[in-house]
C-alpha cells in the first residue's frame, strides 16, 4: 500500500511537470511564426554602372524563401532565400544572354543565388523595426558573410484573408567579391552593384514550420 502510494505520487508529479513543460513549449511555439515568401509580391532589383554614364537596372523574376519571426525573442528570427539566377531580366535579350554567360553569372554552372541568415539583431528605430541580419550570401558559387539591414514595412491581415508581413532591404556589393571579374577595365561594367529586395510573406499555420 505504501509502495503503491509512493508510485502514484511519483507518477502524478511526473504528469504535472510534463504538462508544465508542454504548456511552456506550446506557448513558445505559438510565439514563433513561420512565413512563406509570396513570389508574386517579391521584387529583387539590381543596378550597376555602365562606363560611368548611367545605371542599368535589372531584376530577377523568380525568388522564393521562408522566414521565421519570433515575437518573444526577435534575435531568434531567421530568413532563407533562393533566387533563380537564370531569371534575370534587364529588358534587353542580348544583354541578358551576356549576363547569364560565364562572363558574369554563369548560370549553367551556378543556377541559384542563396541567402541564409545566421544572426539577427533587432533594433527599434524612428523608421520602424530594423533587423540587422548577418548571413551567408552565395552568388556565382562564392559564399560570403554579409550584413543586411532589413526594415519591416508592415505586419497584419493581408488582402487574401491571411496574415502577412513585409520587408525592405537595400545593400551594395562588389561583384568582384563573388568572382565576377570581367569587363572591369575602363569601368565598362561597374564593380559596385546596388541591390534592393522587398518581399511579403504569408503566415503558415501558427506554430508550424513551412515545407520548403
Amino acid at each position, binding site marked *: 500500500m505504501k509502495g503503491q502510494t509512493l508510485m502514484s505520487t511519483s507518477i502524478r508529479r511526473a504528469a504535472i511537470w510534463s504538462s508544465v513543460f508542454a504548456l511552456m513549449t506550446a506557448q513558445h511555439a505559438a510565439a514563433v511564426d513561420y512565413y512563406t515568401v509570396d513570389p508574386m509580391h517579391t521584387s529583387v532589383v539590381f543596378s550597376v554602372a555602365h562606363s560611368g554614364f548611367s545605371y542599368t537596372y535589372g531584376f530577377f523574376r523568380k525568388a522564393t524563401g521562408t522566414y521565421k519571426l519570433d515575437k518573444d525573442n526577435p534575435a531568434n528570427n531567421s530568413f532563407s532565400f533562393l533566387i533563380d539566377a537564370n531569371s534575370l531580366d534587364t529588358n534587353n535579350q542580348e544583354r541578358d*544572354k*551576356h549576363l547569364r*554567360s*560565364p*562572363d558574369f553569372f554563369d548560370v*549553367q554552372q551556378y543556377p541559384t543565388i542563396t541567402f541564409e541568415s545566421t544572426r539577427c539583431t533587432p533594433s527599434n528605430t524612428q523608421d520602424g523595426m530594423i533587423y540587422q541580419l548577418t548571413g551567408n550570401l552565395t552568388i556565382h558559387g562564392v559564399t560570403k558573410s554579409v550584413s543586411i539591414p532589413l526594415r519591416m514595412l508592415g505586419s497584419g491581415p493581408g488582402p487574401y484573408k491571411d496574415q502577412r508581413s513585409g520587408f525592405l532591404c537595400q545593400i551594395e556589393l562588389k561583384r*568582384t567579391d563573388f568572382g565576377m571579374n570581367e569587363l*572591369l577595365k575602363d569601368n565598362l561594367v561597374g564593380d559596385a552593384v546596388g541591390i534592393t529586395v522587398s518581399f511579403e510573406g504569408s503566415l503558415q499555420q501558427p506554430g508550424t514550420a513551412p515545407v520548403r
Partner: protein
Amino acid sequence: MFLHTFLCAGVVPFVVAAAITIVAAQMHAGPRVFWPLGTALGFIAGYIALKNQTGMAGAIAAISRPQHAADWLPIILLLALGVCLLLAEPAHRWIGLSLAAMLVLAAPLRLLCGNVRLNGEWSAGQKLACIVLLASLFGATWFILAHSEMAHTARTRVWLLLIDAVGTAAALTISGVLVYGQACGALAAAVAGTALASSIAGRRSRAARAESHQTFGAAPPSSGFPAAAGIITFSLGSFIILGHFFADLSATSALLLFVSLAAAGGPLFDGLLRIRGWQHVVIRAIACLIPLAAAVTLSFG
C-alpha cells in the same frame, strides 16, 4: 578595354610563343617539340594575362584553384603538352597513345562536371552518352590534325587554322561569352607566334647548313604543326564545347566549327584527291571557310 584585350589576347601569347620557340630551336629541339611547346605555353600566358583583371594574384589563383570550367584549360593543356612531347618520341609512342586516350576521356568530363545538365538534369545514360560522344569528337579531331606530315600543305593549313581560330572566337563572342572569344584569340596569336618563330628558326638553320655545305633535308619547320594537334584540339575544341554547354552556341554551330577545324588542319584532301598547288589551297579553303561562315552566321540567331 580594346587595348587591354589586344595586349593580353594578342601581344602576350604571340611574344611568349615566339620566344619559347626560338629558345627551343636554339637548343636544337625540332619542330615536333617547339610547336606544341610554343603553342601551349603561349596560350597559357595569354590566358593568365586575360585573367589579370584584379591583379596577378587573382589570375594565378584562378588557374591554380579553378572555379570556372574554362579555368581548367591551362592544366589540361599542360597535360596535353606532355602527351604531345611523348608522341614525338618513337620510343614512347605507345605510352603517349595510352595517355592520349585517357586525356580525351578525362578532359570533357572535367570541363563539364559543373554543368547543371550533367549535375542534375540528365539521366545517367544521357551523361554517359554525352561524355563518350565528346571524347570521340576530341579523339577524332586530334587524330585528323596530327595525321598528315605533307610539308607542301603545311603553310596553307597554318594560315587556315589561324582564320579558323579567329572565326571561332567571333562565333563564341556573338553567342554571348566574351571570355571564350578572347581566349580563342590568344590561341590564334600563340599559333602565329610559333609559326613565325619557327620559320625564322628554319631559315637560320638552312643558312647555317648551307654555309657548312650540308644538305637541308628536313621538312620546313611549319610542318611540325601536326605535333601541336593535341594543343589545338584541347584548346579550340574545349572552347567550342564550353560555348555550347555554358553559353548559347547551338549544337549545329559547334559541329560546324569542328568540321571547319578538321578541314583547316587535317589531311582530308592530301591523300584522297591528290591535288597540289593552288587547287589544293582553294579546295581546302572552301572546305574550311564555308562551315566557319555558317557557324558564325548561325550564332547571330
